[in-house]
């Protein structure tokens, strides 16, 4: 018996479909709740910087003056911490992984916010 202990498994496996997927010819397994890359709805963002403060990997940089929100895709660990700390629900997580990229060239995604609308009073003063 000691020598043929795998016979049952071998016979079973002969009549089963392969356990692996022919990726990339077939799409990869993906679940609804998979933690993939972070996305931002930049129009909702108020550039408060809470996300960058709570980022365990220091992947997010927020520039309030230039109104930019940037994320280093290679540093991001997809932990969802920024989305949880966002007061405006601007950041959300998708279930897709980011495509392969090169460090130092295409790894930082910069999102430019709309310029601040000038207050009516200020606009009037300017006009005058």
């Amino acid at each position, binding site marked *: 018996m*000691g020598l043929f*202990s*795998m016979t*049952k498994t071998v016979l079973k496996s002969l009549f089963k479909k392969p356990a692996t997927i022919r990726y990339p010819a077939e799409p990869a397994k993906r*679940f609804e709740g*998979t*933690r993939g890359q972070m996305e931002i709805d930049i129009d909702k963002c108020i550039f408060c910087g809470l996300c960058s403060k709570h980022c*365990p990997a220091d992947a997010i940089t927020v520039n309030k003056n230039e109104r930019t929100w940037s994320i280093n895709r290679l540093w991001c660990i997809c932990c*969802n911490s920024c989305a949880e700390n966002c007061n405006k629900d601007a950041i959300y997580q998708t279930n897709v992984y980011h495509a392969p990229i090169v460090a130092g060239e295409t790894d930082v995604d910069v999102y430019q916010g709309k310029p601040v609308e000038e207050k009516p009073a200020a606009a009037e003063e300017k006009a005058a």
Partner: protein
Amino acid sequence: MAGRIVVPFGPQHPVLPEPIHLDLVLEDERVVEAIPSIGYVHRGLEKLVEKRDFKDFVYIAERICGICSFTHSVGYCKAIEAIMDLQVPERAQYLRTIWSEYSRLHSHLLWLGLYADAMGFENLFMNAWRIRETILDAMEETTGGRVIQGVCKVGGVRRDISDAKLKEMTAKLDSIGGEIEDLCHVFFDDASVKHRSVGVGMLSKEDAHKLGAVGPVAKGSGIALDLRQTGYSAYGSLDFKPIVETGCDCYSRCIVRAKELAQSVDLIKQAAANIPAGDIEVKVKGNPDGEYFSRVEQPRGECIHYVKANGSKNILRERVRTPSSANIPPLVKMLEGCQMADVPVIVLSIDPCIGCAER
């Protein structure tokens, strides 16, 4: 007497999943002494605690290890919750138990595969990892991550599992239960497995106790040391007994892990059947002030998280003692007097995780 030679083993070696270096002093083919050295993957994660918000450190605590990640976050959260006197809801405790057991299943299946690989039994390796894949799928579906779950947080858990999903998971475990049994049968009875591991890497009960072995290494040497008996998370309300083998060799350590697979499946089923309804987290107010020594049972053994805080949002000191660092002295003892060809099997039998031993 033959002359002594020193053979360096690791940190890069085909059989080693992680970088540990051993200087093996040989007399012919016999190992007289093994001198271990670590320090190849130190990351300074304990120091990082001083710069991070204590709630955010859970993400880092979890990344100390790539295999027993969930148990690390449970250990850290348990320490903070004890310091802050937080009452974690029952449901969260049960969910933590379910995920802890899932990570135990995946860790043991990974180890059984690697162990088979160290013996040169490639079919068995592939078989173990095929079963592991279904466990990883269940984890990804419920937590969002395959090995880094990221669901544990201070005061509870991030995600809930619906009752329908729990039923589905239990049904799935029933169906893979047969496969696990077939796999264990090979480890228990196969002649090649026995040939490579029975009587290899002996560690007597006294030595295991004296050198501070933990987890399956201690259990394989007849010491019933299992921290789940302390009843953290929901283990107190589940029925289980630590698995102990008295062979003291690599085979016993392998049997302990193989038997723990069935035990984990049983624990998950029990937890899924008894899980109460309710909240999954409590609100955390203020900062921790005090110190706590939290002990949890990882797939590899006892893991300690010591946390000291002074009332600010950054923690003063965290100290982690992982099971792999505790198991290195017993490993050195096991290697004394063994054959050179058995070294890979013996090193693998403690399930070395140097990444978390060095942090």
